[in-house]
């Protein structure tokens, strides 16, 4: 009787079973590296080898700075392009593609039961499709390029049972912020966080991505939502039939470090206040706080559904005078769809500045703040100095709260616009 993570890591390690705390050598199915891929390449040069275990498992996406604004970055990106071409790495996406996580999921590369490592801490997001995803350092990715293996300590598991009907104007982002506020930033350190129950089952893959993405901010090793018809439909749309993956489910009676029951029926919109993600308050306690900038972007909340949620409030309204609204679609596919469906025009007419797809202001690609400025962001981190000045502040919340805040110029409860 094993949890999700015990089963998935046992398979990847070629062992009949594993237990929490055990050190295993796993063979990841996919190794993602983002803009830092050049560091992996430089590390490979220092290893003195040019031999790659399996180039088809390597995926590179140039997402954090897109495109270059310095000659150094341009050189680094060219190094990655040339490396990919030389080694026959076909899963290479350039600066126009968008955020690595979204690109890999949209391309059907992330499948239930897979073990995926990435040079990005929010690689936990792959749990939205029932895969094991975790963030590792670039040198670990480099070593995996060469050996095809990476050691890991098998994590214990936290089981979160979420039930209830989410009230209008409240979203999966609010649930996760509430949970992070309650459990704190190290509430699930090195644990595999499994989301079960009627609420996650009712969600789209996009919302499940938000949940698994934010699980990182609990300190999680990975996150997981059990695959179901929603998962299968998402994959089928991307040309991946059920025969091409093996769903992994925890056994009934598996051992959890902790089990938590949550009812979302009375949840309110939540806001993470400066300067930590677990400094969470219900919207009522921070409403009215002045903002200079609103950023709708990042792998947490810049997917199609998120931009629709924001546009529902922004359409026919104007961004408050003096407030800058930055919107960075998560991927090229998202950018194309919002243009096609008129959402881009709605946002533009509301006064938004819509950038090319990518990590955008979340990763320091624009959106920097001067002393004393305040940003309301849909991203997943609000650490001091992350977006420019050490004397600026970042609040985190849902796209709906961000949109309502952009319209009023102060942090605003999105339910006022329902």
């Amino acid at each position, binding site marked *: 009787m094993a949890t999700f993570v015990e089963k998935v890591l046992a398979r990847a390690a070629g062992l009949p079973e594993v237990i929490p705390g055990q050190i295993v050598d796993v063979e990841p199915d996919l190794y993602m590296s983002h803009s830092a891929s050049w560091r992996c390449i430089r590390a490979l040069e220092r290893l003195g080898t040019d031999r790659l275990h399996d180039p088809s498992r390597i995926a590179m996406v140039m997402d954090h700075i897109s495109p270059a604004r310095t000659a150094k970055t341009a050189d680094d990106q060219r190094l990655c392009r040339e490396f990919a071409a030389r080694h026959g790495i076909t899963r290479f996406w350039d600066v126009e593609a968008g955020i690595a996580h979204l690109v890999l999921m949209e391309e059907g590369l992330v499948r239930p039961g897979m073990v995926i490592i990435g040079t990005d801490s929010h690689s936990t997001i792959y749990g939205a499709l029932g895969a094991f995803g975790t963030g590792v350092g670039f040198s670990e990715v480099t070593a995996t390029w060469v050996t095809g293996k990476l050691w890991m300590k098998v994590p214990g598991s936290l089981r979160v049972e979420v039930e209830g009907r989410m009230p209008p104007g409240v979203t999966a982002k609010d649930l996760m912020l509430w949970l992070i506020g309650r459990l704190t930033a190290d509430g699930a350190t090195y644990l595999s966080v499994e989301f079960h129950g009627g609420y996650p089952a009712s969600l789209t893959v996009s919302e499940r991505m938000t949940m698994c993405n934010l699980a990182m901010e609990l300190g999680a090793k990975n996150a997981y939502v059990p695959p179901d018809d929603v998962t299968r439909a998402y994959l089928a749309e991307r040309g991946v039939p059920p025969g091409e993956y093996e769903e992994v489910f925890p056994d009934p009676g598996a051992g959890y470090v902790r089990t938590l029951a949550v009812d979302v029926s009375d949840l309110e919109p939540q806001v993470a206040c400066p300067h930590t993600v677990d400094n969470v308050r219900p919207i009522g306690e921070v409403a009215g706080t002045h903002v200079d900038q609103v950023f709708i972007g990042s792998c947490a909340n810049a997917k199609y559904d998120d931009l629709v949620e924001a546009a529902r409030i922004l359409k026919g309204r104007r961004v408050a005078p003096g407030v800058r609204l930055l919107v960075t679609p998560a991927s090229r596919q998202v950018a194309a769809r919002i243009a096609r469906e008129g959402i881009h025009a709605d946002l533009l007419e509301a006064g938004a500045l819509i950038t090319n*797809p990518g990590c955008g202001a979340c990763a320091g690609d624009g959106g*920097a703040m001067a002393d004393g400025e305040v940003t309301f962001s849909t991203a997943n981190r609000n650490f001091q100095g992350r977006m420019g000045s050490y004397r600026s502040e970042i609040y985190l919340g849902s796209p709906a709260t961000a949109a309502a805040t952009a319209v009023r110029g102060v942090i605003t409860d999105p339910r006022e616009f329902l």
Partner: protein
Amino acid sequence: MNLVEKILARASGRARVTPGEVVVADVDRILLHDLSCYLTARVFEEEVRQPVCHPDRVVVVFDHHFSPPTEEQARMLQENRAWARRHGFHLFDCGSGNIHHVALHAGFIRPGTVVVGSDSHTPVHGTLGCFATGLGNYSHAALGLPFGKAWFRVPELVRIELEGTTGLGVTPRDVALFLTGQIGEGGMVYRALEFAGPYLEGLEVFDRWLFPLITVDVGAKSGHVQPDERTLSFLAELTGERPEAVRGDGDDVAEVRGWTVDGLEPQVACPPTVGNVHPVTESAGVPIQWAELGGHGGGRLQDIRLAARVLRGRRVHPQVRFNVVPSSRWVFTQALREGLVEDLHRAGATWFPPSTGSNQAINMGALAADETMVSTHARNFPGRNGGGRMYLASALTVAASAVAGCLADPREFVR
């Protein structure tokens, strides 16, 4: 008097002026972008410290940044904003578009007026029949802001007459590039240029735009097109009112030079300078990694439509990244309405916020050491965008090259 003399005579309160004379003229419009605004503000607040004479004449557009990448740049924009608001200037924040396109679209440019700005391409406003020129930040700080004035030596006027008909795949940008090469950098130092002739008069306003734009490249003080019916109806549609036309009398011209556009081939300004212009056929086949529609002369709706002619049903070459930077929010909105955003996206292009795009690589557009970009931008000097080499061309040539992966003759793509 010619148009420049008439404008400067009115603005300096004289019955007439003649070339060589120095006049102190009232300035009707001062245009500052995010970089020049910062420097002008510094000088003004540290050394001048007086009330601004006509704050409603000052237009500030943040166009080099579309989103500050560093804290220092954020602070610069924050100071600009505070300064503009304190004095009551018109402020267009990041994402509004290119300074000159925004100023024109927002109705700030009127025929017969004096327009100055820190940007060296400010003469582009001669398109609507202004006397428009670039001045240093100190000039704005010392004279423009406190007194609403600037001094000028009245330039001699040279009329450039263009006639003939361009062939398929040859655009007004090719003609403007050709002229730059023909006249030469520094070929018209401190002269005013009047672009005229049946070819030019047959162009719509945003195609005429490309001619006064080259003024600075040939060393001239200003460049203009005499306002005509097309200018006036353009402005009537834009602003809802029909302005008075100020026109020159036609004979006070130091020199007349003429070219025909018959038989002209698509042109490219090759590295390292804007005047190094050759037919595209001489550079065809040079591999490129970057292509961009944008800048003072690009990112017009016309450019986006031209690129779509090439790109519909085709794909950008896998080795090329193709950036599209609309020149203003109006252009972006219109491109969305016409389905151009989707069309170019499908072909592999990436859309960026309205701005000056890769100009000086503030938010984007840095090149690696041996990378090459072809763009509709106005400058190609070495080091301007990191490493690399830059070619300047028409939107058609840029799009055709993006598809081919190397500099390409667009005539093969628009048959």
